[in-house]
């Protein structure tokens, strides 16, 4: 009897591992497919080999050259770095204020910020675009009259945008348009607030007695022990900025200003049947994400578990 139940247990265990492995295979197959195809020759992609005979490293150089990935890559690195810097500073300050500072209207402001999480980008993107074009209010250093006159005279929108840019008359194709919208989001503030709230209040009282104000307490005591949630905000912010597509698609009209996702999409519409080059391009766009993910992975999952994201 005992032997029988042991056998059942082993089989049960084996089934569990089987499910997990099948899940992992399904999760990984598209990546395997992508990498394998990126090393194939054109003939192999048509005849659908599983693994390339001899890896065509040249595909990467070819894709890099054909699609201008060098420029896109550089743009994305700059955009992501600037956005992340802003996001970090803004979320830490706001998260701390919402967690530990008393001020009138705090809860209602926080609730309104949280409510913005449910609004789709497709709803907000149009007025934001007009704003960046300078059609709603005059922007610093910008005059939209040239653009309006151009369209008013029956010009094509894209042509006018382009002309407009050369006049420096809008924020299209500028770093501020590509970064500022990513410099704050309710999710990051929420995440940090949850963590900061769990700090024992004795800690603050003690700092207070030592004569430290809120800011010194935040930077000298709170931040050094908040690595996990900050990593989480960083990784999510990095993903959000690097992977962003709709907004950059709208606010960039010139190839040299485009970030990598828009560049990849352009490549998709141009590369046609050159699947192997397309996949090489897709792999290139993934690399920074993979590096950052594998480095921050541990702290990041810890961050999720410790910030009360669980409900």
């Amino acid at each position: 009897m005992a032997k029988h139940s042991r056998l059942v247990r082993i089989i049960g265990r084996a089934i569990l591992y089987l499910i997990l492995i099948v899940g992992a295979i399904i999760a990984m197959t598209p990546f395997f497919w992508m990498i394998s195809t990126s090393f194939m020759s054109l003939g192999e992609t048509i005849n659908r080999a599983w693994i390339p005979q001899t890896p065509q490293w040249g595909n990467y150089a070819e894709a890099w050259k054909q699609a201008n990935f060098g420029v896109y890559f550089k743009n994305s690195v700059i955009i992501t770095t600037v956005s992340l810097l802003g996001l970090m500073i803004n979320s830490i300050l706001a998260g701390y204020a919402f967690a530990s500072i008393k001020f009138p209207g705090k809860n209602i402001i926080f609730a309104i910020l949280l409510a913005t999480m449910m609004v789709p980008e497709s709803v907000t993107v149009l007025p934001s675009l007009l704003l960046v074009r300078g059609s709603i209010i005059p922007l610093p250093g910008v005059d939209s009259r040239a653009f309006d006159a151009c369209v008013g005279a029956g010009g094509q929108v894209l042509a006018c945008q382009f002309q407009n840019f050369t006049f420096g008359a809008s924020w299209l194709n500028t770093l501020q348009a590509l970064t500022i919208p990513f410099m704050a989001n309710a999710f990051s503030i929420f995440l940090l607030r949850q963590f900061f709230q769990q700090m024992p209040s004795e800690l603050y009282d003690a700092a207070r007695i030592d004569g430290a104000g809120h800011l010194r307490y935040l930077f000298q005591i709170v931040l050094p022990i908040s690595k996990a949630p900050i990593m989480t905000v960083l990784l999510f912010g990095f993903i959000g900025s690097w992977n962003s597509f709709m907004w950059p698609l709208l606010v960039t009209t010139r190839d040299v200003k485009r970030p990598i996702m828009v560049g990849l999409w352009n490549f998709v519409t141009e590369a046609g049947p050159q699947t192997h080059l397309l996949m090489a391009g897709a792999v290139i766009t993934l690399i920074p994400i993979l590096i950052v993910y594998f480095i921050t992975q541990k702290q990041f999952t810890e961050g999720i578990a410790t910030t009360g994201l669980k409900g």
Partner: protein
Amino acid sequence: MNDATTFTQPKLHRQINERVKESLLGYLLILPSVLVIGVFGLFPIFYSIYMSTFNWRVTKGAFTGWENYTKLFGEPRGLLIFAAGIVLLVLAFFFWKSAFTTNKKIQRILKIVAAMLLIAFGVAFSTGWNSFTGTGDANFFKSLTITLYYSMLTVPTQLLIGLVLAYILFQNIKGKEVFRMFYFLPYVTPAVSTAVVFRIIFSPRETSLANILLSNLGLQPLDWLYEPNSFINMLFGSNLEGFIAGPSLALITIAIYGVWTFAGYDAVIYLAGLGSISKEIYEAAEIDGSNGWHLFWHITFPLISPVSFYLLLISFIGTFKAFNHLYVMRVPSAQNSVITASLNIFDTFYKANNFGYAATQAIVLFIIIAGLTFAQNKLLGKKVFYG
């Protein structure tokens, strides 16, 4: 505050001063975030309302008042009937709820009333809906059904897979971290890049990965992302039309992508939730003789319900927000069978350059999401067990 009178005057002064200072610091610290979110998250909603009252192509044209809305909804009578239907539904809900608090006889009457209200709702809803699609913007309402299909296909599937994976991983599995890392990867990687890969895996070519798998199973190749026909019709050779025809194969393929991306995310969040259930509860239940399935159904499932509720809400909203992968995976041959509400709005202003009307669609979509979120909170929020 009561003992404020016991303070001497200067001390009170200093206290008020400090409180004002603290408040000012608070406002100062939240200012940058509030500005960014306010300008790019809140202001557009109000400005869209303003835009929706104009004939706004690229630049602002004439003021048109309700015109955009009547273009969208068609006959005003239809909208009124539809709104009345929603009111009936809310009433039915309240009657049904109050039926459980009074005595048996009244209970029965209340239940009958609720049932009748529900039937009336059904009639009003379908009358209103037919009026919308007949006299209003049929494409917009079609895009709402597509969105709904997409939610129904992805949300339950991804939550279920996420929970199963998390529950298994929680059973002292060797290599737990490695599995978790693999499962989470699809969520982390850029949607545009992975959607491009899916476009190739699910291409209609006979040598695409999906079709190779089918032919290994002895099945005919399919058109996948290029197939605008209803999957149910293809499967049973039936000829259904309208809502009951169900999603197209192209939409189902996109839903597969959705599940592939988010199941791992759900699993990671579930795993964090499972970790927070105290071990003693399990030990106590095991002493009482509970076994695996029992434990899961009577202990894990209720205790994990806040996580389920959170994930349900954000995934549901997520399906309404979904854009990037849909934009990348839609191909002309799939026709409008994969155009969700978000894509529809985007096309209205990006392709058709009709800004005023796009703003109108955006406002209507926003109201629908707000309503559905509110309803989910009301209906399910109470069932959640917070311990």
